[in-house]
């Protein structure tokens, strides 16, 4: 039985987090849980501690990428074999985690839970602008990596140990990290696949996107994707970085 860590990045999620942790504890007690409080100003980390899970508390807000990277580093140092990225807002179903983990046993490095793959379902509204942006991203990703993903921005993902080793250092820290991470993993030669999952509406908190900001972030992401992921030197740098960290524990 591989050791599995559920990583939950949480930024001011006191509304929904306790229910999520309770559900995880009841339905999937075999997994360890780490909540990364991303500079939360509310009782997020306090409630997580009360629930008895591991809690890493970032001193200020790093964005979801930084929170995830913290979680991946924890998983690597804690000797976990695999990890799952899980939302604090109640969108993800604990019972779907096993389904997400299954392809890892067959050699996948990263598994994406897709709302739009055959057999998946969305039980909440996706706004028009968002849908169009998602389509655009899907096409762009297909062009960049030559593989089709139906839900590039899904935050429900499973990672193998080699993937964790890689992402503990290289995980993108800009907003829209999930798409960039996907392209990064594919380009670095990791085996990425997707499985259909159901996602529910949020139980608390608001979607973090305002319309204009969303457009800005999409534009920024396009620039980052096209420039950085097609740069061989950048990839070489990341590899080098990875080895430096392996050798010296993070010193430059």
């Amino acid at each position, binding site marked *: 039985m591989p050791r599995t860590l559920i990583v939950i990045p949480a930024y001011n999620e006191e509304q929904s987090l306790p229910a999520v942790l309770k559900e995880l504890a009841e339905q999937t007690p075999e997994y360890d849980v780490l909540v990364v409080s991303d500079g939360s100003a509310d009782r997020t980390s306090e409630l997580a501690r009360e629930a008895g899970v*591991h*809690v*890493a508390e970032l001193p*200020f807000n*790093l964005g979801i990428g*930084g929170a995830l990277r913290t979680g991946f580093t924890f998983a690597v140092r804690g000797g976990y074999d695999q990890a799952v990225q899980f939302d604090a807002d109640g969108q993800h179903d604990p019972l779907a985690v096993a389904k997400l983990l299954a392809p890892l046993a067959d050699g996948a490095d990263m598994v994406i839970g897709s709302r739009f793959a055959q057999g998946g379902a969305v039980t909440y509204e996706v706004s028009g602008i968002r849908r169009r942006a998602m389509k655009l991203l899907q096409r762009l990703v297909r062009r960049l990596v030559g593989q089709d993903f139906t839900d590039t921005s899904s935050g429900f993902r499973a990672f193998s140990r080699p993937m964790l080793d890689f992402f503990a250092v290289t995980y993108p*820290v800009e907003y829209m990290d999930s798409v960039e991470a996907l392209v990064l993993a594919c380009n670095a030669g990791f085996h990425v696949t997707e499985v259909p999952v159901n996602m529910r509406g949020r139980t608390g908190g608001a979607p973090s996107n305002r319309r204009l900001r969303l457009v800005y972030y999409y534009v920024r992401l396009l620039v980052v994707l096209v420039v950085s992921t097609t740069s061989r030197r950048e990839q070489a740098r990341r590899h080098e970085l990875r080895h430096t960290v392996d050798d010296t524990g993070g010193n430059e």
Partner: protein
Amino acid sequence: MSAAAHVLVIVLAAAVIAFIVVLVRSRRLRAKYSVLWFSIGLGLAVLAIFPDLLVWVSDRFGIDYPPATFMLLALSFLLVLVLHFSWELSRLEDRTRTLAEEYALLRLQLEERLPETSDGDAA
């Protein structure tokens, strides 16, 4: 250029250089920047003392209005400098981020090792 203007430019250049020296001596400017700013101060001084240099350079490049040459150089320099600062800032952000991550993980480790002191007032 009138004699008065000439003196004024020289005084200004000297003031800039003096200010740079003060900053470097009091260690408020890192060495790598002090070299940069000293070169700039030196350039200013040379131009202040020999303003005809600017005219000569402008002639060589076919620029009719010598102050435009100065503006071009100044703007290029500032552009490069701002770009450099952006780069430096990105690097600093990366390092701060890594520190924050390490801090969170170390604190987690510490709290789990000392459960009785971790709740509430440890923060």
